[in-house]
């Protein structure tokens, strides 16, 4: 069977790729996609830990999987709001590149 640590390493790699995407991309849509990658990394970690809960062959509880369900719910709400905000910015400034949205730059 696959040990817990390999899932943790996979989720760390996924989270690092998400960090790179958030910092390096210019388009706001792609930044939202990178945030989704990071949320998925956290979900993999939570569900792997919940499935591998103890070594005695018994399940302690289902907290990890339920927190993952709540993370998916919040991610859905976040993407909906992000779409609305991106559309609003595009209508006002005709761009979604985050380095051109400098209205509040001092």
């Amino acid at each position, binding site marked *: 069977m696959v040990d817990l640590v390999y899932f943790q390493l996979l989720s760390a*790699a996924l989270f*690092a790729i998400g960090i790179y995407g958030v910092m390096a991309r210019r388009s706001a849509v792609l930044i939202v996609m990178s945030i989704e990658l990071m949320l998925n990394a956290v979900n993999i970690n939570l569900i792997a830990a919940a499935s591998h809960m103890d070594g005695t062959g018994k399940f302690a509880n289902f907290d990890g999987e339920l927190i993952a369900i709540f993370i998916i719910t919040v991610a859905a709400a976040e993407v909906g709001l992000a779409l609305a905000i991106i559309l609003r910015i595009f209508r006002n400034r005709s761009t979604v590149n985050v380095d051109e949205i400098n209205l509040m730059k001092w």
Partner: protein
Amino acid sequence: MAWFVFILLAVLTIGGALGVVVVRNVVHAALALLVSLVAVAGLYLVLFAEFLALVQVLIYGGAIIIVLMFAIMLTRNSDYPRITDNKQWPLAAVAALAFLGVLVPSFLINSVEGTHAQNASLTGIGESLFTTWAVPFEIASLVLLVALIGAIIIARSDEEEG
């Protein structure tokens, strides 16, 4: 067998994620994200979390990718086919590698040996959701409602207001 499936799904997940942050075409990036998310659903199946795999395919593969596709379609402009990255991308690579450099040794040092994945019963998840997690469940439904109403109000055009 589990190892073979895990390695295949891990390669698909990481490859799709790299596609999201590297590819120059926005639509191709969204399709790469879809590959990555479906592969993550497969990883949940390796972990015996069937319900989570179903939720992942339905919400991420169905709803979120479609919403992102709408965002891409409604915000297309002249630089749409070939987008560029920030000038600070080397800094981003350094930050990501530094994060990885902290996290990987900590996982390797504190690794738990000898555990194995086991089947979580759907009955147990349901009981836990509506007893221990009942209040967060209700709050999550309120969060969804408020977020969707807020999205409608933000995205509404100026002429309809007033």
